[in-house]
Every structure is written in structure tokens, then in C-alpha cells.
């Protein structure tokens, strides 16, 4: 039988979100736009189980206090059934406790911090991104396996995102971490370039480079590494592994040999040219968001999140209580998100709130990312 909590009815499901449409992180605002467009498309084809999705996405300017205000509006005034893909570790930290107190599902956060997978203490919060720490750990394992005596240099963004990766990486290296990492350097998002950092890292004599940067800085770093004639084994975090929006600007020739991970298909990769999901994506972008750049990794990401959200709602059926939403979110069974790489399945359970189990190690051959090895477990 039908059961509803606030935000759900026979005709409508209200979903809330905060996104940085303005402010320093407005580059991510595109994610919210893709999600809104996807739900619009769903509505046009009849919605989910006959219900239209009312997606309310508000601007938080990447400011935690604003995020609190906006989320309170969503919960108390707009009365959404749940929120999805609220972006940024600081903003989500600010609303973390509130959402759990209010018992409103706080789903698929757009951040890779590990603390979102804590069903015991925060049963209403679930992340989306493969956890940065785990990813960092995987690179460490790869290094230990292939070149146990590597001298490693690390560049990371001086915020939660960079530090999460670094922590996982150091944990992964284990006891040898302090000895192996010969130099690390940070940058701020406001830095114009990371040239100086690259020079510092190069002069440390390292032969391996772990590059924990967001797209613009990743591109700068890749180019600078090549320009100064440094030839390390270069690991690049998956956040910036987009061929179209990172490697191309940096120079494809300069990107040869990069190692990264992937879990979502890269639209600029020719091998997906005839892939159904990719074709759907490109058609969707063309129809609904002609102004946005389809090569932008944020857009494929947004679509993947929206697809997973739709899946959860389908699983809910007519039982649209917050409790059931959470229950269904916690029982995703090896679901293949169309935009995710084949074999990269979303899977959750009541005591494991991290949807992604696996990622694929890839190496850049000057044209596309080439998978090597088996998909690796991220947990």
C-alpha cells in the first residue's frame, strides 16, 4: 500500500539539494544542472512510478553557514522527502548532524570523505564518490607491488579533499610511508600556478609523483612536469582524469604514461563512441543542456548520481517514507549505473553505506585511458 512522508504524494516526490552555483566552487554547479535536467527528462517520460520529481536545488555558494540555511529551508519549508548529492565536505559536515536529527535521508553526498560511511552513528547519511582515502590506498598498493623502493613526491590541495587522499595513500604505504614519501607540497585553490611546487618536488629527486589536484591544477602540473624534464611515474587522482577537460589542455603528448583510476565513462574517450549509455548521454546533453560542455567530467558524474537516485526511487515503489528511502538506498544490489564503467557496480547494505566497491586502474596511452589489471576493490 501507499505510504508517504513529507515530500511525497501520489503525484510528486520532492527532492532537495544544495550546490555551489555561485562562489569559488561554482565550476561544480553544472552537476546540479545536469541532475535537474535528468529529472526533467524523467518527468517528461512519465516520472517514476507515475510520480513527478520536484527537484529543488539551491545555491549555497560553497559556504557552510549558507548550506545550513538552505538545507533547513529544504527540510522545514519545502519539506523535501530527502536530499541528494549536496556538495562539498565542509557544507555536508555542517548539515550532517542536523539531517540525522531530523531523520531526513542525506543521500549520495558529492564528496569523497570517508566519514559518510558510518551507518551506526549516522544512519541517514550516505556518500556517493568512491572514497578518496580508499582510492589513495589503492595507488599506494600499486606502488608497493610494482616499485617497492620508489621515492615518492606528493602534491595535494590544502583542504579536506587533498588531505583525505593523502591519508589513504600514507595508510596504504604503511610503515614505509615516511621513508618513501621524500617530499610533499600543497597548493591553495587561489594559487595562480603550481609551478613552484613542481620545481620543489622535482628537486627532491623523487621518481614517483602522486598528483592530488583538481582539474585546472592537474593540467598545470602535468604540463609543468613535462616542461621541466622530470620523468616520474605519475599517478593522477581520478577527480581529474578527464581526457577532454584536463589532459587535452595539458597536452596529450605530455600526458602519456599517467596512471589513474576510473569508475565513470569518459565521453572524450573514443572507445565509448558506440556505447549506448554514452550515446544517450550525448543526446540528453544536446537536448536539455546545449550550453554545457558534454566533455566535462562533472556532467557525467551528475548523470550517474541522478541515475542511481532514480534507481533508489524505483526500488521504493509506493512506500515513500523517509525510512524506506533510506532502507532502499542501503540495499542497492550490484546495480550497474549506465554511465559507470562496465563492471563497476553500485552496492550497499545496511552496514555499508559506500555505493562503489570497485574501480579500474588505467594508464593513458596518448589517446585514451587503457585499463590494466582487474577492477580493484575500493573498500
Amino acid at each position, binding site marked *: 500500500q501507499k505510504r508517504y512522508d513529507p515530500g511525497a504524494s501520489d503525484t510528486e516526490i520532492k527532492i532537495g539539494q544544495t550546490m555551489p552555483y*555561485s562562489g*569559488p566552487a*561554482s*565550476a561544480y*554547479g*553544472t552537476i546540479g544542472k545536469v541532475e535537474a535536467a535528468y529529472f526533467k527528462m524523467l518527468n517528461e517520460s512519465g516520472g517514476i512510478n507515475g510520480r513527478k520529481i520536484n527537484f529543488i536545488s539551491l545555491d549555497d555558494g560553497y559556504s557552510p553557514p549558507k548550506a545550513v540555511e538552505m538545507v533547513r529551508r529544504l527540510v522545514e519549508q519545502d519539506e523535501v522527502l530527502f536530499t541528494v548529492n549536496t556538495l562539498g565536505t565542509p557544507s555536508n559536515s555542517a548539515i550532517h548532524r542536523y539531517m540525522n536529527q531530523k531523520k531526513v535521508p542525506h543521500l549520495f553526498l558529492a564528496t569523497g570523505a570517508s566519514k559518510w560511511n558510518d551507518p551506526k552513528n549516522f544512519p541517514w547519511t550516505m556518500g556517493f564518490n568512491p572514497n578518496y582515502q580508499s582510492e589513495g590506498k589503492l595507488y599506494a598498493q600499486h606502488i608497493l607491488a610494482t616499485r617497492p623502493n620508489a621515492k615518492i613526491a606528493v602534491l595535494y590541495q*590544502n583542504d579536506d579533499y587533498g588531505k583525505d587522499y593523502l591519508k589513504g595513500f600514507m595508510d596504504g604505504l604503511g610503515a614505509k610511508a615516511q621513508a618513501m614519501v621524500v617530499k610533499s*607540497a*600543497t*597548493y*591553495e*585553490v*587561489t*594559487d*595562480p*600556478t603550481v*609551478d*613552484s*611546487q613542481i*620545481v*620543489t618536488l*622535482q*628537486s627532491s629527486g623523487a621518481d614517483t609523483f602522486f598528483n592530488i589536484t583538481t*582539474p*585546472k591544477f592537474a*593540467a*598545470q602540473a602535468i604540463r609543468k612536469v613535462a*616542461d*621541466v*624534464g622530470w620523468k616520474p611515474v605519475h599517478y593522477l587522482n581520478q577527480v581529474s582524469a578527464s581526457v*577532454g*577537460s*584536463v589532459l*587535452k*589542455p*595539458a*597536452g596529450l603528448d605530455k600526458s602519456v604514461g599517467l596512471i589513474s583510476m576510473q569508475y565513470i565513462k569518459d565521453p572524450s574517450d573514443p572507445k565509448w563512441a558506440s556505447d549506448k549509455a554514452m550515446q544517450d548521454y550525448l543526446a540528453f546533453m544536446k537536448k536539455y543542456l546545449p*550550453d*554545457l*560542455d558534454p*566533455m*566535462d567530467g562533472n556532467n557525467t558524474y551528475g548523470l550517474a548520481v541522478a541515475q542511481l537516485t532514480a534507481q533508489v526511487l524505483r526500488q521504493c515503489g509506493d512506500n515513500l517514507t523517509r525510512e524506506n528511502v533510506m532502507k532502499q538506498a542501503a540495499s542497492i544490489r550490484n546495480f550497474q549505473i549506465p554511465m559507470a564503467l562496465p563492471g563497476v557496480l553500485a552496492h550497499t547494505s545496511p552496514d555499508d553505506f559506500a555505493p562503489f566497491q570497485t574501480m579500474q586502474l588505467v594508464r593513458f596511452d596518448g589517446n585514451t585511458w587503457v585499463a590494466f589489471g582487474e577492477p580493484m576493490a575500493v573498500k
Partner: protein
Amino acid sequence: MDAFLHQVFAGLATGGIYASLALALVMIHNATRLVNFAQGEMAMFATYLCWTMIQAGWPYWGAFFATVVLSFVLGVAIERILIRPVERAPVLTTVVVFIGLLLILNSVAGWIYTYTIKSFPSPFPSKAPFGLTIVSAHELGAIGVTLVVLMMVYLFFRFTPLGLAMRAAAQNPDSSRLVGIRVGWMLALGWGLAAATGATAGMMIAPIVFLDPNMMTGVLLYAFAAALMGGIDSPGGAVVGGFIVGVLENIVGAYLIGTELKLTVALVLIVGVLVVRPAGLFGRVIVQRV
């Protein structure tokens, strides 16, 4: 030692970036007595215009000079349309208009061009001369362009009657009118020249930092610091300030304190210099007397 030199050169290269925008700040300050917070975004927008032209198939230099001219016109237009209504308002009122302009340009650029970074062509060869790896040809070229612009700005303010009239109009509009200076047009001209200078800076910076709507937010802060360090009324000071800031920041980051606090420490040092020399290193000390 080699690494040290390397850091210094990297610092000079980024310093050149700061210097080029700092020049635009000095330009606008001498012409209006204000620091234009939107200067960076104006340069960014101009660079996008150039990029659009290049995408449309224009040759680089054609697009370059067209952008400089177009920026000049846009700068004049901004002054006439946006700034003029608050010309006689208190300084901070104008500052808020600048902030509004900054937000508008940043946001509209993101809307039109999206936030994905774009590579921007350089007019200089891709291989550095003499097989240098320390600096790229573009960085050298950009520094050269900055020095040329510096020369022009310097000569303009120092030797042309127009330059003098512009400075006069900025500091004492009423008296300027009484000697026949068209104050309104001086301000507009100043905006035009500053916009053109900024556009040049933007087109030299974009190949280094990549083109995106936020490409100037960081640069502006450093340019601001550089201009003030050198003395906000001194074009030469701005350029020297730019190099000092660039090198200082790198040395601090690499050898003194680590990269986490390099900006903080660099800023503290700059403010320290200013406390000792309140008009900057090369700024003219203006005495107020009764």
C-alpha cells in the same frame, strides 16, 4: 643551488604574471585614484573574447590586437555606463560597484563559456631558446610583453600632457575642470587604457594558468600586493613588485615554511615592508601639510 635558481626563475615567471596585471591596477589608480577589484575579471573576459575570435579562425595577432582595441572600447563603455553614476559618491560606494561588476563578469563568463578549463595559444615558440628547461619561451615572451607595456605606461604618464592631465583629473577633478581638462573623458580613457592593459595581461597569463572564469581570482590578489609593494602610483614599482612577490612567495614556500603558509608569510612580509615604507618601495611619498 640549481634548485634554488630554478625556484627563482619559476618565481620570476609567475612574477611576470602578477606584474602584468599590477600594471593595469596602477594604470587605473593613476587615472581614477581607485583600485579596481574587477580588473582581473575584466582581463579574464577579454581573454575569452580573444579565444572566441581564435576559435572562429582569426590569426593570433589579429585576435590579439582586436581584443586590445575591443577591451579599450569596453573599458570606456564600463566607465561611462556603470561608474559614472557613482562618480561623486563616496569611495566605498564605487568599491561596491566594482565588486558587483566582478561578480557579474565572473558569473556571466561561467554561464557563457562554462567552467571547464581551456588551453589558450601562445604566440611564442613552444621550445624555449638555448634548450632552457627552467623557463618556457612563453614565460620569457610574456615578461617581454610586460616590459613593453611598462615602457608605454611609463612614457605615457611621464611625458605626455594627456598622462599628466589624467593624473590631475584623478586627484583633483574640480581644479582639473578649471584648467580645461575634460575630467569625464579622462576617467573613461583611464578605464579604457587599464582595460587594454589588463587584456594584454590576460592573454599573456592564460597560456600559463589556462583559461577559465576563475583564472584571475588568485592572480588579482598577488597583483594587488605587487602593485602596492612597488607603490600604487608607480608603473615600474608594480613590475618590480610583481617579480619580488613571485620570487618571495616561491622562496618562502620552498625553503622557509613550506607551501601551506607561503601565501600567509608572503603577505606578512609585504605588509611588513609597507609598514616600514607606507608608500611602497617606489611610490612617491605624498606629504600632507597644514
